[in-house]
């Protein structure tokens, strides 16, 4: 099928498409991972975005459903150089094409993705529209313009679409730690990592109240990843005030959007990066250890937290080695910490997996402290 991509700066790219018949707009971001397209397209954080894969071949291993990061494809669409129509992997259940059709999504391929990548790198993220129905530039321009206002998709959108995963985990009852998870569009990988460390994650929507949380008497709080502008989400909801009430009470851990919200809850601000970090090879330096340790991390964010005026509240624990951006913080007095990258990987290296253990340690310490309080 012929397809077209129109960017907000007027750039037109012709290619072909696989998957469903569709017309979709979104923010164009590029991801440089060479593996893990199944995880990427199903990562809820990509809601509202069209993801360009820089690696040449996509679809080689099909879709196996085991590696999905959520129940369905969240990226609006995907763009790549080449797509394999046959999957070559013993776990594959369907081809990428079949999956896209089932998800009613499409992939644009056969285009110069390096050109697109460099454009985004130089000009920042751009909005764009992909269509395999309408090839009229004027009409597409109009559609793109009118879609711009609607493109601020975040957790609100996830719940609006009735994809709520709230309070449903029952299989982990015998686990040691009860974790209240703020689900802003959480990746399955995070839940798996928590469960693997003996946690019972109980999911709450972004608009839950502090009382809902307190009611279950959790050992700790987890703030998940999710799509969109954190400041926008803070505006759209009462999440910051809920967090402000809860953070002093429980050991807390945040990843990506969750990390940004923790910062916002203490008064810091977020900034938008020019084209974000969407990769699985980003080096992050650990600052809270003596040796010179660098982690290869999975990253997927367009916003970063700026705590330059809040260094009396937070210690910087991790910094991005390439551009020096903030990658991890820990509260100086409270057992509250967060990272900008994805220690659960999926896709990506598992170098940062230990970070989940720090959360467990915090919950343990807190338990012992409470015990001491009770004993005293």
């Amino acid at each position, binding site marked *: 099928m012929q397809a077209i991509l129109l960017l907000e700066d007027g750039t037109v*790219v012709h290619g072909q498409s696989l998957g469903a018949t569709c017309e979709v707009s979104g923010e164009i971001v*590029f991801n*440089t*991972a*060479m*593996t*893990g397209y*199944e*995880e990427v397209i199903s990562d809820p954080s990509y809601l509202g975005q069209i993801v360009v894969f*820089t*690696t*040449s*071949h996509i679809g*080689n*291993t099909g879709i*196996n459903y*085991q*590696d999905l990061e959520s129940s369905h494809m969240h990226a609006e669409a995907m763009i790549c*150089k*080449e797509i*394999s*129509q*046959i999957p*070559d*992997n*013993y*776990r594959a259940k369907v081809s990428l094409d079949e999956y896209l059709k089932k998800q009613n999504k499409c992939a644009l391929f056969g*285009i*110069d*993705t*390096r*050109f697109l*990548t*460099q454009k985004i*790198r130089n000009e920042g993220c751009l909005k764009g529209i992909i269509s395999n129905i309408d090839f009229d530039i004027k009409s597409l321009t109009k559609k793109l313009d009118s879609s711009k206002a609607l493109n601020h998709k975040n957790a609100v959108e996830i719940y609006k679409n009735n994809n709520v995963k709230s309070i449903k985990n029952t299989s982990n009852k015998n686990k040691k730690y009860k974790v209240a998870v703020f689900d802003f569009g959480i990746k399955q990988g995070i839940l798996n990592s928590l469960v693997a460390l003996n946690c019972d994650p109980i999911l709450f929507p972004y608009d839950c109240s502090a009382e809902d949380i307190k009611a279950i008497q959790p050992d700790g709080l987890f703030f998940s990843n999710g799509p969109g502008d954190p400041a926008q989400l803070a505006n759209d909801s009462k999440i910051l005030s809920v967090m402000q009430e809860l953070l002093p009470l429980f050991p807390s851990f945040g990843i990506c959007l969750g990390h940004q919200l923790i910062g916002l809850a203490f008064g810091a601000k977020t900034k938008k990066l020019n084209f974000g970090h969407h*990769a*699985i*090879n*980003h*080096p992050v*330096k650990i600052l809270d250890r003596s*040796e*010179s*340790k*660098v982690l*290869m991390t999975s990253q997927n964010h367009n916003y970063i937290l700026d705590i330059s005026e809040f260094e009396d509240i937070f210690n910087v624990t991790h910094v991005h*080695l*390439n*551009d020096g951006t903030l990658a991890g913080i820990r509260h100086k007095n409270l057992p509250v910490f967060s990272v900008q990258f994805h220690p659960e*990987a*999926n*896709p*990506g*290296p*598992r*170098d940062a997996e230990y970070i989940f253990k720090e959360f467990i340690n915090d919950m343990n310490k807190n338990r012992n402290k409470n015990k001491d309080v009770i004993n005293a």
Partner: protein
Amino acid sequence: MPKLIDIKKILIIGSGPIQIGQGCEFDYSGTQACLALRDEGYEVVLINSNPATIMTDKETADKVYIEPLTHEFICKIIELERPDAILPTMGGQVGLNLFMELHKKGDLEKYKVKAIGVKAETVDKAEDRREFKSLVTSLGYDVVRGDLVSTKEQARKLAQELSYPLIIRASFTLGGTGGGIAFDENEFEKLVDAAFSASEHAEISIEESIIGWKEYELEVMRDRAGNFVVICGIENVNPMGVHTGDSVTVAPCMTLTDKEYQKLRECSKVIFKEIGMETGGANIQFAINPDNGRTVVIEMNPRVSRSSALVSKATGYPIARISAKLAIGLTLDEIKNEITNVTSAAFEPTIDYVVVKIPRWDFDKYNDVDGKLGIQMKSVGEGLAFGRSFKDAFQKAWRSLEKNIDGWQNSKNKFSVNELENLLQTPTPALFSYIKDAFYLGFSIDKIYELTGIGKWFLYQLQELIHEENILTQSNSEISRSILFQAKKDGFSNKQIANLTKNSILKIENLLKEFSIKPTFKMVDTCAGEFEAQTPYYFKTYEEQNDNRISNNKKIVILGSGPNRIGQGVEFDYSCVHAVKAVQELGYEAILINSNPETVSTDFYISDKLYMEPLVEEDILDILTEENPYGVFIQFGGQSPLKLAKAIEQKGFRILGTSYSAIELAEDRNLFGKILTKLSIKAPAFGTAMCAEDAIGVANRINYPVLVRPSFVLGGKGMAVVFNESELLSYFKNALKIDSSKPVLIDKYLENAIEFDVDLICDGENIFIPAIMEHIEEAGIHSGDSSCVIPSYSLSQNNIDKINIISKMLALELKTIGLMNIQFALYQNEIYVLEVNPRSSRSVPFVSKATEIPMAKNAAFVCLGKKINELNTNIPQHCLNKFNIKVPVFPFQKFPDFTPVLGPEMRSIGEVMSSSHDFNEMLYKGYLSAGLKLNKSGIVLYLGDESKIENYFNIFHSILKDNFDFISYSKFKFKLEEIKYKIKNQEIIMIISPLNFRISDNNCEVSEISKYAIQYKIPVLSTLRSVKAFSIATLYNTMRS
């Protein structure tokens, strides 16, 4: 972390001569390491026996020793230099083995030399298969079932516990010598014997077969803080069962999900940590069962390797350079990524293109060989190609082999379905051609997968190419823009498109212009475009955007030498690198084009700009059009660029140095013959023939024996000496497999003549000859296969003068600018000219090292207009006081079925050099370096007929009287088994098998003995002069303390 400050002087051991399984990649890694260490302020001492390396240049290390790579010699150097540390990971398996020997014999401790980069215990753990397996298993990972055995009994017992097919391997060998796959007991017995004899330790390994599994390799780096990165994964297109060096390989990994890939990564990280890999680059191989994902760890190498060179070129991440810096204590995050300048070396490269490596085999050189590929590596070189897709890179990789291939091609045979089914089941160099045949016959992907084990994803890509071909075929003259553009994107060459659409190449070129389809160049940037890169490193493809930054500088393009092959190896890369340096010194921009990933020239630090592209007309002309350089150098890369001369000149580009017409003159025997006659220079009588009848006429005119060969070849390919008419007919019938449009050359064969070589530089007015080289072996043995000595030791002053005069006459007459190589023969006290090559030659590095005159660099200066009197041509006094020898190294051990005879066709693959003030010591060290065994007593076995025995005996007797016996095989009637035992037992120290150029097969037993001797590193000598030389070396060995 601070650098190590307790060390100042570091020893690096090179990898010695080029061999199968050990190409020029270690010159690349060694050179990078030396330069990196010197950058950091350390003093570097280097030892290597291979003169044709950049690493043995004075500019690379502080102190260079071109000496035998033996424990004894290295100890001497350590004693002399007292280095503080040794970096043993840069010299391949050879370097690592020597390091282990030094360690085990206590020399490192004795001389207080600290090992950096790797610990001896780590090497032990990695190389001891049993220990490695138990370590891997203890960490919770899977391995191949099997074990090491040290007796045949144990082997049989183990075989009963496992099931066939079984893999048998010798331990501690290069490229898997002495191994094989046994499908039944019979084969098992044979292979076990072979493995025991090849193994340097008395152990062999026997394992369950995982043939047909997917094969992967990860190139990784670790620093002393424990930081770990994977530079890139490689996937083998050929499944397990074919040595990685003989497999078509691709990067990045194509058929792994992230879960599987991360499992391999995590496993590598854990193993490297637990095995104690200190710092630097290493690789680890995995196999995955395609049916159920069972993943096993195959092996790891705690050092840089052929694949780390490949991955460095594929990603732009300089593994050896970074490894060296890690070894002296820096950590990854402290080292800048010199490609982006904004990031550090602590990251994992990501690429937005595909690279495909295809090996190059020269099986036809060892004509007894069946061409079957297995776990023993047999390829002699490789071509690497980049593309934006697998198809693009795959097609280009075939072209890069320079075997007159336009892209992926069929076998051009009409096989039946049955025949193809058989052919597809046996891996051979032609496998991919058979796959194409099979697609043409309508085989399905599933069926081809069943037969070959090649992954369906790859077959799907190949099927798409077939589909593309069909579209082209159907479109005929009506090719639309989109069809043509797609074909170019998929890597089709203009010639392929022309053939498929039944058009001329010119028509296709015009269509491309008409549709404004232009090649685009993409940058190799380690980061898939995420950061703005500074790398001047590009490949060609067809897309929308061109990344290329074209400078306005005065640019010189230097054409490289392509994949290694017999007759064209690292020596030409050496010259290319020197040409680059000369170009830069004179203020020009140096642009290099090459397709051989092993080389120093394709290190993007070397030139100002690098293109990794095949050395074929279309790709080269596209780059020249893109760059519009001031001039092109074609005389440094051997025969490959020379073949492009005509096209380059016709397109209007300026060839700097000797022009195309002069090259043609030297290569055309008739024109050249006229020049010789005009200058009254003696040459063997000759003629050319297009058919057998002509040839008989010529031979009768000039008298037998005659030397026959096709024109326009390198390395004496297809050459033979024939003694009578029936042999001549048989040559035309059987031996001649060449382009029939080119004539066959027939020369009078000068029996027992002594050969001399000259590499000269000519500036159009004057010439400079640094040295005359004298061959040990008599004329008739290819110059590349005979040992040669500087200075000429048996030439009279009168004849030296003659050679100088003739050289000047020829150089001027051929209007030579730059390098020229002339081969002379002294026959009945007259000087004859045998051959002229108006280009750099194999011996240029040797001459340069012996005289300390950088010949290639000087030649490049001359090509750029300098005169000889402006160059430094003063040979230092200490060079004039010593003897130097270059000794060839043969890959016969890898071809156990081939009778190791020498002749006019070149078969050696590498070379070593030795120098000494003592001629005898020079010989001794030369043979030692070449890997031959020298003994203090034993038997010299004569295999020739009785008529010639006296000459040989006299030579033997005049040199080796004591402790040695001279025995004639035909006279004493030893049993074959007895001889073999004596060879194995080192009782026989030399075998004399007088030259027999006859095409007809050698005597069966003689052949058997020779083959067996080669496996035990016992020399098989065929001429009086070589027997004399080896006898002197042996004598020297007996006399030294």
